[in-house]
């Protein structure tokens, strides 16, 4: 072989070609330098591949909850099929426009963001309740946290059911208008997730703040509604009536 053929050998998947390149490099200083670079590049690529990426806080819980919900056929069935006449079914009948979804997401984020700015000036600090009132507050907190956990678990099931619907945004068979609408829903859900994360962060520092508790519940409710709308849209796409 000649030096001109080295490129072809070096990019080949055939181990025999690599061996031929190495045999040629023994007799050619320029190709030997080239081969050393290729070996160094392979070593760097392997180091990059093995390095991995540290998942964000809370990501493991999110993935495991979604996987758990995805495994439950009963949960999927409930999420996929809204009861006739339910608020979900009525919402499904009036198809949202992409513009409305986008502005609603912005409005929700702005409303929650503005509310969060005022949170630090309201609500008791942890441990300020005393005596019998302290016990009542503790009971109420426990009940609120339990309700929030149930809400979060239910939403995780809806999220799992909505994943295949959102995935249709990248399906070439999906009409451009529908794909754009699905992407708008995805953005809206992300905005709500950021809001929920901010409120949860505040509650981690000030668990007894009633305003933050109310905001978290409102955010969960909003997310549930958005997911229901999305599932209704997905059902419409399945039927080809969207």
């Amino acid at each position, binding site marked *: 072989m000649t030096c001109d053929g080295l490129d072809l050998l070096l990019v080949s998947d055939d181990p025999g070609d690599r061996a031929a390149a190495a045999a040629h490099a023994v007799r050619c200083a320029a190709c030997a330098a080239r081969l050393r*670079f290729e070996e160094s590049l392979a070593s760097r*690529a392997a180091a*990059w591949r093995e390095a*991995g990426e*540290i*998942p964000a806080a809370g990501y493991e819980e999110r993935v495991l909850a979604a996987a758990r919900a*995805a495994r439950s056929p009963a949960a999927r069935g409930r999420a996929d099929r809204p009861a006739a006449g339910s608020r979900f079914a009525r919402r499904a009948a009036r198809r949202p426009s992409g513009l409305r979804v986008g502005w609603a997401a912005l409005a929700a984020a702005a409303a929650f963001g503005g509310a969060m700015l005022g949170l630090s000036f309201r609500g008791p600090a942890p441990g300020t309740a005393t005596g019998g009132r302290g016990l009542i507050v503790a009971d109420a907190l426990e009940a609120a946290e339990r309700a929030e956990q149930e809400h979060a678990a239910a939403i995780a099931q809806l999220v799992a059911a909505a994943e295949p619907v959102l995935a249709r945004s990248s399906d070439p068979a999906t009409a451009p208008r529908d794909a754009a609408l699905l992407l708008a829903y995805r953005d809206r859900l992300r905005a709500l997730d950021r809001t929920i994360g901010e409120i949860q962060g505040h509650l981690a520092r000030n668990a007894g703040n009633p305003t933050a508790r109310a905001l978290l519940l409102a955010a969960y409710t909003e997310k549930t509604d958005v997911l229901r709308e999305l599932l209704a849209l997905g059902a419409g796409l399945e039927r080809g009536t969207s």
Partner: protein
Amino acid sequence: MGEWSDPAVAEAYRRHAPRLLGTALRLLRQREDAEDTVQEAFIALVRHAPAIDAEGAGAWLHRVVVNGALDRLRSRRRWRTEEPDEAALAAPAGTMPDPRALDLARAVARLPERARLVFLLHDVEGLLHEEVGAALGIDSGTSKSQLARARALLRVALEGRP
């Protein structure tokens, strides 16, 4: 293995999630999309892969993440809805212990898009040219020529010579 139990999924997550996230972030350069792609792979595992055992799960998940990331890239090109994170471009992998690998990541970020993808899929993710071609919708000859182009540009970037 009949079904993926909660502990089995959690173990698979602990073993494979950092590397899968690395793969998704390398390809997508957008953290939220990368996280969504990996989450979808675990959902697919419990829904569609009861026959995959724990040992085979890593390779299976890796392939699903690569395909999912490429789907998202195609969608992005179609709608041009998202730009890569500037932070992801500046420091493509947060846990990289080897400074030589970090240099490579920065140089790869500056490659032309098709050469970047071919280099990542072939040299970093370990796909064969036929698989790269199928994934990107190009023939294997184009995959080889793009790989040669990518390596030549990387040599200039990393060693200062062609």
